[in-house]
Every structure is written in structure tokens, then in C-alpha cells.
């Protein structure tokens, strides 16, 4: 067993058997990060010293008989999660100098579970992007082909797992930011139901859409991680007070009689034919496992990206108003008055895409335009949500591609915002509705990974993970590793 291609579950077993200490695993991954990993630009901060201390603490806890399944297993956090005493940049010049004074809820939970944080993963600036090209720290490379983007915005997290720099990572998903990079990098990524995981300490982009989730090699690993991440937190007013199932104990799922919907809108124009055949092959596998398929319609799918690009920028323009150069973050030199301080600090601190979205949101919320844009988008949001609700009256899960194409090349779409936005055409509606979704490796197109997306009903993560796990028992796409990072 090679450490860097192992799953979280395998490493957990190896630790429990005493085959490796957490220190050995941590040193092995740090070596990967500082060796082959450098070329990927997947991490923006490496916390070697803290990681080794946490590993030693995990080894001591194990010696004392206090180890859980995740104790001593290394991971990385997307740099959107606040980490006390460690720079939390959110991929932005604005927060390049920001040392967080507190931990995100998710960071505390995974640390309490004994996980060892190796560092912070690169990301699109403030999670706004689908390619990781908007990061202040430069683009992340896809381990399958370093000319290709890893997807975004959790591109550093996805590339770190696919490149064997960490067995697992946290991500956040506002419009596809966990599922799309998971698909493009050939790993498994779960976006939970809105409210399942606390957003406390997760730097806000669009608060009615943002949700944290796990990224790893397998559905089983995502189950282990979600179990530790999820749970009620007073400090997030939208966090749901609801028991967290033991997802990892309910993975074995009999798919006989399971009804899966195939939305015809997800298989139309714009879908790459090679991606389509990989998804068709996955449908065949699911049929063999006993699932039944039914064609469904999510009739307002074509309005999801337009509605999102009003709602997300509107929320972002409001959320990002806190970055004013006064209390933390970047401040311009020698401001001549308060307005100059605000304007230049923000103009210098934010990159192009972030400024674009702030301006779109500001415009959409401004007097005279509110009804035409923001209110309209919220009405469309209900139509999109209702499409899912009526689909789930007939089916248990919905299946389709995660992304219309495999990874595109770095630079290919960066000059055309609208064409970039369309990368998320199959993922965005899920956020508007607040539903859970998972992306699972399902083949290749032109040597680059293809992701299969499963969408579940509210709080039905257990069934989603079970269905993904069943597929991973009969396929081996999730075990493939890129040659250059084998």
C-alpha cells in the first residue's frame, strides 16, 4: 500500500493496526507537498510544524486508547476556512495579510476528530470562479494534465487529493465549487444539504447558497468526513438542528427498487459526447445494480445560471462590503480621505472577477433595478426549486453529468465570463434549491476525468453516499491515479 494513493479509510485502518504512526503519514504527505506537489500550486500555506505537533498528539491519543476513525489522518482545508493563528487568504490579495483570530466550526470539528491539517488549499478568489484561475496566488494545475484547469473554486482541494498531497480536503460549494473540481480532477466530492454543516468561520460569498463539504477519493471517505463535519452550531443561524446519521455505517445500500430520474435537460445541447457516453455507461452499471430509471424534466434548468448570476453577485456585493480597509485585510497607502481609503483598498485588494461580481450585485440591488433583477431571480429560484420537489415525488435520486465537458485548458475561458459561468450549468440549480449533490469519477474524455453527479432530496445524504458507494464497488474509476503523480 502506498501512502499517498490510499483512502482515508485505508489510512485509518493502517493507523489502527499500528502499521504507521500519524507522524509517519504526516511526514510522507508533507514530503509530497514539498516535492512533486509544488508544480500543482495546490496549497497556498503549508503548516508543517503545526501538522507534526497535531500528528504527535494524535499518536499519543491513540496510545491512550482515545482514537476515533479519523484520528491522525492528514487533510487540507480550503483557504476559505478560518484557521486560528494561520493566514486565511480566501485566495485574495485582500486577505493576504490576514491571520485569523479564530477557527471555523468545521476546522474545530475535524481537529476534535483528531485530523491533522497539513495546510491551506488554493482556490478561486473568494470562491468566485470555476477554474481556479482567479486566485491571487496563481492558477492551480490539474494533476491529470498540467495544461488543464482543476476546476473551481475548490480547485486546490481537488488537485491536492488527486495529486496525492492529502487523502482528503474540505471544500465549499456555492454553485458547484465542490462537485465541478471533483469531477475535473477525478475524485469524489459531496455538497451537503444547505444548513447541514455550519458556515461559522467560512468566509461568506453568497450566504443563501454557500455550503461546506468533503472531498476525497471515495464516497466512503466522504461519509467519514461528513459525519465529523456536520452537526448543529448555534453560531450559524441557518445551521439545521437535526441529528447527524452515521453515514459511514449505512453505506451498504441495496439498489433494487431504487428509482433514479434522468433529467432530459441535462443531456441536451452543450454536453460533450464523450462525457455523455461515460454517463450512459454509468446508467448501465446502475441498472445492473437493480436501479430503475425514469426520464424526468427539470423544465427551468436553462434559467438556473441566469438566476444564480443575479442572486450570488447580489449576496456577494453585500457580504464583501465588510472588506473596507479599516478593521482587517488590505489597506491602501496614504489614503487622502475615508472614501479614498475604501475605494483604493477595495480596488487594489480585489481581483477582476470579484470586482465584476460586486458591481453586478450592486447594480442588481440598486434603486429602480431591484424588481427587474433580484426579485425576478428569486421568483425563478422558486420555479427551479419546485421542479426538483415535483421530480422527487416520483424518483429517489437524480443522475446526470457534473460538468458538460472534461477539464478545459488554462486560459481557454478566462477572457469570457459568461462562457466560464456555463461550466456550472448542471450544478448551480442544486444550490438554488439547497439540495445535496455528489460527484463521482465515471470515466475519461480525452485523458481527462469525467464526473457523474447524483442529486438527492433534502437531508438524504445517506442515500446519496450509499448509491455512490455501490457504484464504486463495481467500478474502479475512483482508484485511478494520474501517471505523473502515481
Amino acid at each position: 500500500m502506498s501512502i499517498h494513493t490510499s483512502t482515508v479509510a485505508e489510512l485509518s485502518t493502517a493507523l489502527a493496526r499500528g502499521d504507521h504512526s500519524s507522524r509517519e503519514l504526516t511526514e510522507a504527505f508533507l514530503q509530497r507537498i514539498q516535492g512533486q506537489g509544488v508544480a500543482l500550486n495546490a496549497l497556498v500555506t503549508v503548516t508543517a510544524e503545526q501538522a507534526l505537533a497535531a500528528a504527535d498528539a494524535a499518536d499519543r491519543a491513540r496510545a491512550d486508547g482515545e482514537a476515533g476513525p479519523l484520528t491522525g489522518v492528514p487533510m487540507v482545508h480550503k483557504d476559505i476556512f478560518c484557521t486560528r493563528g494561520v493566514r486565511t487568504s480566501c485566495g485574495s490579495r485582500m486577505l493576504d495579510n490576514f491571520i485569523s483570530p479564530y477557527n471555523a466550526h468545521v476546522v474545530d470539528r475535524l481537529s476534535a476528530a483528531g485530523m491533522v491539517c497539513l495546510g491551506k488549499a488554493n482556490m478561486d478568489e473568494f470562491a468566485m470562479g470555476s477554474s481556479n484561475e482567479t486566485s491571487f496566488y496563481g492558477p492551480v494545475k490539474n494533476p491529470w494534465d498540467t495544461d488543464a484547469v482543476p476546476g473551481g473554486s475548490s480547485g486546490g482541494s481537488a488537485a491536492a487529493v488527486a495529486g496525492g498531497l492529502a487523502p482528503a480536503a474540505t471544500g465549499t460549494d456555492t454553485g458547484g465549487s465542490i462537485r465541478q473540481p471533483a469531477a475535473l480532477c477525478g475524485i469524489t466530492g459531496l455538497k451537503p444539504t444547505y444548513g447541514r454543516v455550519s458556515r461559522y468561520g467560512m468566509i461568506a460569498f453568497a450566504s443563501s447558497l454557500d455550503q461546506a463539504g468533503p472531498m476525497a477519493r471515495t464516497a466512503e471517505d466522504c461519509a467519514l468526513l461528513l459525519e465529523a463535519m456536520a452537526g448543529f452550531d448555534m453560531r450559524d443561524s441557518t445551521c439545521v438542528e437535526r441529528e447527524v446519521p452515521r453515514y459511514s455505517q449505512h453505506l451498504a445500500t441495496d439498489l433494487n427498487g431504487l428509482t433514479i430520474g434522468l433529467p432530459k435537460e441535462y443531456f441536451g445541447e452543450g454536453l460533450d459526447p464523450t462525457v455523455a457516453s461515460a454517463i450512459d455507461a454509468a446508467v448501465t452499471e446502475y441498472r445492473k445494480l437493480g436501479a430503475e430509471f425514469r426520464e424526468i424534466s427539470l423544465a427551468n434548468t436553462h434559467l438556473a445560471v441566469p438566476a444564480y448570476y443575479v442572486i450570488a453577485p447580489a449576496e456577494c456585493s453585500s457580504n464583501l462590503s465588510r472588506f473596507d480597509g479599516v478593521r482587517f485585510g488590505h489597506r491602501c497607502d496614504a489614503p487622502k480621505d475615508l472614501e479614498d481609503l475604501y475605494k483604493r483598498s477595495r480596488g487594489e485588494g480585489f481581483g477582476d472577477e470579484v470586482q465584476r461580481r460586486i458591481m453586478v450585485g450592486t447594480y442588481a440591488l440598486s434603486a429602480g433595478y431591484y424588481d427587474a433583477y433580484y426579485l425576478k431571480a428569486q421568483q425563478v429560484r422558486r420555479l427551479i426549486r419546485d421542479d426538483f420537489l415535483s421530480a422527487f415525488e416520483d424518483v429517489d435520486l437524480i443522475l446526470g453529468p457534473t460538468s458538460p465537458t472534461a477539464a478545459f485548458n488554462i486560459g481557454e475561458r478566462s477572457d469570457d465570463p459568461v462562457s466560464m459561468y456555463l461550466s456550472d450549468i448542471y450544478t448551480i440549480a442544486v444550490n438554488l434549491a439547497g439540495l445535496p449533490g455528489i460527484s463521482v469519477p465515471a470515466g475519461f474524455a480525452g485523458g481527462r476525468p469525467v464526473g457523474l453527479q447524483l442529486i438527492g432530496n433534502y437531508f438524504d445524504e445517506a442515500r446519496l453516499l450509499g448509491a455512490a458507494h455501490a457504484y464504486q464497488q463495481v467500478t474502479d474509476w475512483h482508484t485511478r491515479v494520474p501517471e505523473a503523480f502515481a
Partner: protein
Amino acid sequence: MSLDKDDVRQIAHLARLAVDDQRLPEHASNLSAILEFVEAMDAVDTAAVEPLAHPLEMRQRLRPDQVSEENQRELFQSVAPAVEGGLYLVPRVIE
């Protein structure tokens, strides 16, 4: 909706963003393309549809009105660009 340079200048002012004059045409063209794209929503009649602000349509949770945070002013001000005597410093506002 097609925006011109003056529109962008006004939006940037509202958003408190310093935008280089030379880049105004580029911003105008990108923002116009985005607005044109989102206007696809106009094709559907939503007159009778209640807006959805939040996916779970939750009510705001209330808690007892008690102090739950301790004062961490020094810690929080340690990441501020300029503080003095516990206050955040900004350029003079009142002459």
C-alpha cells in the same frame, strides 16, 4: 441592458471600488454581457410566483438576550491595519 462608461463609473462608486478610467470600457462590455445573459429570465412569466429568498424557508432562530461572547478586542485588533488606544484609525472625517 447595455451599460456605458458612465454607468460603470457610478456603479463602481456605489460599490466603493476604485476603477481605472482606462478599464471602464472593458468593464462596461463584460457587465453588459452578464446582464444580457441574465435577462433570459424575462422570457418566463413570474407575476404570480412568490420570491424564494432561502432554500429551506426557515424562520430566524431566536435565543435568549444574554451576553454570549467575551471581549476579545485586543485579539481582533491585532489584525487591524491601524489602531490606537483600542480605536481603529481612519483618515480625518470631520475637519
